[in-house]
């Protein structure tokens, strides 16, 4: 009990600092000279001090381990390269794999980058990549990290290529290879000391903090920075304080409260990375009070999306339209944007015979900033439509054990938002193990199979449009908005990442002005 009280105090304490910081309009700054983002050609040299959130109890150094901490992922991504990385358009761009091709969308051949070597100088081989992917596949969550590809389907092809064979035609294999496909040397036993292939080489590591130095021999071209120091922060509030007082140069993924605090200060850049986080509300479709499609539509019409973005995200976000994967180049912009229509929502509820006397529990957690707040505001808004929603806040462990995939109404969150097909495959097609709303729709499944089974071209485009239309009309998701990813940086830091999600770790082109 004591612990709980302490934890509450800790939360309150963080909040207190945040509020005080917000109240303090201008203060001294020790940020680098000059105002605003660094301009001009990238300058070589300097050590970038980066803050990232992480819990001391969850530090993970295994490239294929459970990624809880932003700080760990940042360190791993700088030292090791995945096969592919997020891009703007297209959303998948080469990294350790220079190119990939497939004739039938089942058998994919990834060719490694010319001159790719480990930090100890030995060349990266197809065997190393295949071994690492098999290791990834063998982790407890391996089946969801490389869906449709089992260990037997991962084979080296000559010295510099690897072949992945999928159980079904899947155009999204290169996208799946973006996640944690970090390559280690074949038969590595001590993963914490294993040399990587990335733009920076790990020089020291201690309790979640690390120093990485430039890999001069990086196949992607020499990074401008001499070194990157990653500092782990227990809370975004402490990280904000550190940036504002010049103890770090970049606060990665620090959240909207920090942005509000820093907005308007000289010498601090607020970097917004749109479409970073989706926090949809899941309405169970298989059974329960939201099984009727009309009820789900009524809730989508009862929510005030602008107010949600304004209040939950402090305005650092965009309104969404119930289709997940908003940063996908193929995202359906043709669908009518839903707006609040309480009269129509009321009619739909009546038609469906919805019981308005009942109380409906909405389960949520505080896993990501704004999530619990979104649930509270949503509940308030639903009262306007005569639906009595009661928010139940759960601890993370309880939520993932008892609520996720099971409850009739709960909040969820996802950090990979640049692919419509990713969500369709992972959380909506009827065969997936993580069908969050227990949604089974034949029309949708058909569209999904067509989309992943089609090579680029009109067939795929049509299938994607169809898939999104069905999702928009009848899925179990209510996606009211998209949160921006927020980084704070001192003036004089240039070349910072602009992409959402894991794109935030791409610091190999960042630089410091003199």
């Amino acid at each position, binding site marked *: 009990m*004591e612990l709980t009280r302490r934890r509450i105090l*800790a939360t309150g304490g963080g909040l207190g600092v945040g509020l005080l910081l917000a109240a303090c309009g201008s203060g001294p700054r020790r940020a680098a000279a000059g105002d605003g983002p660094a301009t001009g050609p990238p300058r070589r040299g300097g050590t970038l001090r980066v803050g990232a959130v992480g819990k001391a109890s969850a530090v993970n150094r295994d490239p294929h381990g459970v990624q809880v901490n932003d700080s760990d992922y940042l360190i791993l991504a700088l030292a090791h390269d995945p096969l592919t990385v997020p891009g703007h358009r297209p959303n998948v761009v080469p990294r350790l794999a220079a190119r990939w091709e497939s004739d039938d969308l089942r058998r994919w051949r990834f060719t490694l980058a010319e001159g790719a070597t480990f930090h100890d100088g030995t060349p990266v081989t197809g065997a190393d990549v295949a071994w690492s992917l098999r290791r990834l596949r063998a982790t407890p969550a391996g089946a969801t990290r490389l869906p449709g590809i089992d260990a037997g389907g991962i084979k080296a092809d000559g010295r510099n290529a690897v072949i992945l064979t999928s159980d079904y035609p899947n155009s999204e294999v290169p996208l799946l290879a973006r996640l944690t496909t970090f390559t280690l040397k074949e038969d590595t036993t001590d993963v914490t000391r294993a040399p990587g292939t990335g733009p920076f080489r790990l020089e020291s590591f201690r309790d979640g903090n690390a120093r990485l130095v430039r890999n001069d021999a990086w196949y992607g071209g020499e990074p401008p920075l001499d070194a990157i120091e990653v*500092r782990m*922060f*227990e809370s975004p509030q402490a990280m904000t304080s550190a940036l504002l*007082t010049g103890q770090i140069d970049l606060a990665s993924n620090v959240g909207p409260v920090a942005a509000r605090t820093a907005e308007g200060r000289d010498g601090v850049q607020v970097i917004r990375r749109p479409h970073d986080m989706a926090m949809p509300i899941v309405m169970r479709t298989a059974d329960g009070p939201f099984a009727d499609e009309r009820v789900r539509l009524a809730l989508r019409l009862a929510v005030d999306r602008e107010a949600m973005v304004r209040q939950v995200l402090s305005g650092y976000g965009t309104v969404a339209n119930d289709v997940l994967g908003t940063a996908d180049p193929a995202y359906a912009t043709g669908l009518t944007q839903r707006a609040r229509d309480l009269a129509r929502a009321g009619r739909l509820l009546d038609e469906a015979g919805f019981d308005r006397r009942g109380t409906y529990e909405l389960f949520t957690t505080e896993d990501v900033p704004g999530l619990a707040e979104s649930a509270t505001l949503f509940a308030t808004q639903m009262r306007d439509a005569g639906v009595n929603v009661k928010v139940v806040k759960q601890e993370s*462990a309880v939520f993932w054990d008892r609520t996720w995939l099971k409850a009739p109404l709960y909040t969820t969150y996802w950090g990979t938002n640049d692919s419509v097909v990713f969500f369709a495959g992972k959380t909506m097609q009827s065969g997936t193990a993580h069908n969050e709303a227990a949604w089974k729709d034949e029309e949708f499944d058909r569209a999904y199979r067509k989309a992943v089974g089609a090579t680029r071209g009109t067939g795929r485009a049509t299938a994607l449009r169809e898939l999104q239309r069905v999702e928009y009309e009848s899925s179990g998701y209510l996606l009211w908005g998209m949160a921006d990813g927020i980084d704070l940086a001192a003036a004089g830091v240039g070349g910072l990442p602009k992409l959402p999600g894991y794109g935030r770790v791409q610091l190999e082109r960042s630089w410091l002005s003199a």
Partner: protein
Amino acid sequence: MAERLTAARGPAAPPAWRAGQSSASGPSASGPSASGPSASGPSASGPSASGPSPSGFSASRPLSLLLRGAAALAQRAVLLAVLLVAVFAAMEFLPGDAARSSLDRGASAAAVAARRVELGLDQPLWNRLLRWMAGLPTGDLGVTSRGEQVAEVIGRHFPGTLLLGGLAFAVTMVAALALAVVAALRPSSALDRAISGTSTVVAALPEFVVASVLVLLFALWADLLPAVTVTAAGGGPASAAMLVLPVLSLAVPQIGWNARVARAALADECTAPHVEAAVLDGLPPRRVLLRHVLPGSLPTIAAGAATSVGMLLGGAVVVETIFNYPGVGSVLAGAVRDRDTPLVAGVVMVTSVAILAVLLAADLVRGWASVRRP
């Protein structure tokens, strides 16, 4: 938890040596012994409760002290064991388990079940508890849900907390005693009233309020001290200046509390006959205070300080988070969240041992202070 331990140790018992004094000069009703847990130090079982035996010869005193110390130690070991059982039981009753929270959310049910077996969570609570306790004598605190040795995790993080808590404790005692003495030298003066008033207010301030204000004043506005701690390659704070604000945040409320306790103890002691005699002998106030008043009030001050140790270690959890200080507090918070029972029990054990050690030291001070008087 620490406060509990102390608070649960029984009602205030006046120091034994006083009990033998004439009723005319007994502890005044307004003294610290009647006004709060500060004087609740050793209860009936403490070394001082039974007082020195009337026939005690000075040569046998060290021996009896030793025996009492051993008895107190044994009692505390039992208390610690009970506490650890309670921790295991409490973790068991919390919903969710370490298997789920140490895996990705994408992990299959089969993977979670396999992990449960791997972590021994399929075993009954008693088996896990006994196996964990069996390892204790060899220093084996078990393995965390992420596969690390608990002893190693604690070994990396506990020194930081000890440093923070130790410094805060030292600052607390020096400042609190100085304030109390200054106030006691001029009873009822404006200074005395100011110190008493202020100490009451700051004693009631939660650490996070103090911490937030200090960060705002000294880091964000005045730009004098670093706002947060960044760790050096060795794992400790990169500079000593980074310790200042966390130590002050922890110490300020405790200074308030201890200054009040010490001030009241000094006032109480001032009414003792030997003090009155010293004053009548015309000794200078400073000398009376240091030689005659302070030693007598030491038991109460020691008890007050002992209660602060628990508060300091508890407050460290909050303060470490605000200042990003690398200590065991964040590990404990994370371990509870992850339902990592061996790690929680390990942290609870080392902090409890630290607290019990200080309580024991406080008891010894009281025992010593009481036997050295006729």
